[in-house]
């Protein structure tokens, strides 16, 4: 690292510029990742928080079998016959209905003086005890924290859903579904609500627990005319989740490619520019290994410096964003993209190493530079 450090110091302007570019790319990648994670959480956190080995969806009985397109929670409808078929299948310990619908909720003024407050919510109904947030008794709801905030509602107050009144039993969890805060009800209450708002009252999905492999799931699917996935796989059945995460992921991927190319191009030009120096060092007796370590160390120093600055920026943005913007600031979302930028940058540096390995010490002899 003897020459590498001195190069860094002598050409600090150029290296600072590269580090700044790396820092900006890290900042962009990191904040997009935080934002994507935040948006995704607002889309799927309630479903992701469910405890099931498989999620079963089905096309409503009336619709033609040839309807194309992926099933979504919104247009899936599982009949009780399908439910019993799943519940009684070998390897299945239980199959419970899950109701999912979106509606408006209104908090009733308790004293008559306070004004009412309403908000769009997602209503998720399951059997009591199936999730920690399902209310134990009928005519009560559990509000997720964001739902409670949107409705300005507290435990014990009354909330109206689809013309029916419910008592808030508890405020708990961070449930979101399709960018709307979640209100949890019992499945029976959800059925009534569904029928009151023009629905069939049939479950949107089944939550299945048991020991099933992919083949068994597929066999049951064919027998019962359903589509079963893992919990993670079922996220694709939520509204725009796939396209949202997909397009943001594509941008993140492109940024990572750009950073690898920029770093690679910089170090390639930099190394080519000092090929003559490298040839001299080799002619003086430098081992190729020491030259490679030197160059790798130099690249790592610049990358780590830039990425550290960028990551600090991401943390600052995350802290500033607070709850105003859906932004997830976690070790994973802050450090994983940074690490990826370092790794991809090093790939770029590796490309430049070829010029060092292949530099011919003979060119140092009798040459005028």
């Amino acid at each position, binding site marked *: 690292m003897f020459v590498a450090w001195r190069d860094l110091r002598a050409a600090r302007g150029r290296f600072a510029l590269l580090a700044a570019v790396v820092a900006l790319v890290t900042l962009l990648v990191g904040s997009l990742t935080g934002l994507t994670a935040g948006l995704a959480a607002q889309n799927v956190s309630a479903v992701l928080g469910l405890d099931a080995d498989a999620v079963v969806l089905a096309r409503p009985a009336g619709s033609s079998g040839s309807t194309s397109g992926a099933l979504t929670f919104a247009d899936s409808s599982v009949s009780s016959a399908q439910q019993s078929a799943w519940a009684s299948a070998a390897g299945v310990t239980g199959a419970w209905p899950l109701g999912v619908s979106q509606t408006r909720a209104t908090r009733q003024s308790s004293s008559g003086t306070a004004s009412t407050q309403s908000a769009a919510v997602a209503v998720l109904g399951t059997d009591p005890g199936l999730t920690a947030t399902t209310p134990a008794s009928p005519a009560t709801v559990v509000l997720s924290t964001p739902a409670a905030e949107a409705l300005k509602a507290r435990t014990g107050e009354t909330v109206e859903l689809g013309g029916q009144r419910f008592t808030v039993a508890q405020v708990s969890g961070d449930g979101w579904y399709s960018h709307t805060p979640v209100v949890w009800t019992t499945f029976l209450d959800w059925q009534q609500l569904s029928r009151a708002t023009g629905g069939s009252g049939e479950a949107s999905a089944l939550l299945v627990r048991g020991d099933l492999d992919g083949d068994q799931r597929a066999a049951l699917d064919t027998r019962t005319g359903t589509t079963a996935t893992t919990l993670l796989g079922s996220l694709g059945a939520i509204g725009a989740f796939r396209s949202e995460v997909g397009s943001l992921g594509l941008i993140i991927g492109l940024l990572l490619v750009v950073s690898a190319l920029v770093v690679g191009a910089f170090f390639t030009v930099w190394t080519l520019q000092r090929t003559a120096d490298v040839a001299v060092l080799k002619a003086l007796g430098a081992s190729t290994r020491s030259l490679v370590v030197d160059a790798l160390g130099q690249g790592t120093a610049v990358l780590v410096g830039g990425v550290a600055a960028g990551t600090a920026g991401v943390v600052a943005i995350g802290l500033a964003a607070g709850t105003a913007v859906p932004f997830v600031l976690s070790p994973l979302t802050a450090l994983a993209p940074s690490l990826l930028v370092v790794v991809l940058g090093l790939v770029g540096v590796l490309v430049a190493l070829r010029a060092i390995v292949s530099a011919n010490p003979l060119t140092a*002899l009798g040459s005028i530079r």
Partner: protein
Amino acid sequence: MITFDDVTLTHPDGAGRVTALDHVHLVVPDGAVTVLTGPSGSGKSSLLAVAAGLVRPDSGRVLLDDDDVARLAPSAAAALRRERVGVVFQQANLLPSLTVRDQLLVMGELGAVAGGRGQRRRELREHADALLAEVGLDGLGRRRPHQLSGGQRQRVAIARALVHAPSVLLVDEPTSALDSERAAEVVELLVRLTRERGTATLLVTHDLDRLNSVPGLERVVRMSDGRLDVPALR
């Protein structure tokens, strides 16, 4: 001492091969400067490159003391250079980002992956400063190459070539970028250091005339078309 024993070197040249060294026999003794001169393209740099282990000859032996450089793999030849061979180039070929003193210290780092430390580092620095004083660059250790004259740069290059106390010094056209006076000074310095340190010095130059005034250049070998004109110099 360097001994070239029946050394032949050819380079690929289109379909055929061009002979750069043609059965060369030569002994470069310790403590004296052996001057190798001859027209352009006669094979002077080729002989130097072979001695430095930068190219392997087609045949023959090249002995640095007792080791046959001609048989060494590139990495082993590099190790030999950083331990026992000093090289001075046509241009000083200094590294632009290093100070004058660092140009010397870098020789201690060529094989090293991690830097030296503490006591050793201080000793090396004192040694480098002493050597810089010896070549007439006292107090210039903190300058960078672009802050030096051509003659000063070549002195730094000579100090760099000697910092690891090599037994062999290979010098290729050290004066071609200098005026006659500066050229004579640099070669005088080489002659003096060669005597003081007892190195076997091979000095390649194409214009011997400019160096007429320099004492101690008695051993002169002429080369043309890859052959030594005085094969008797053994």
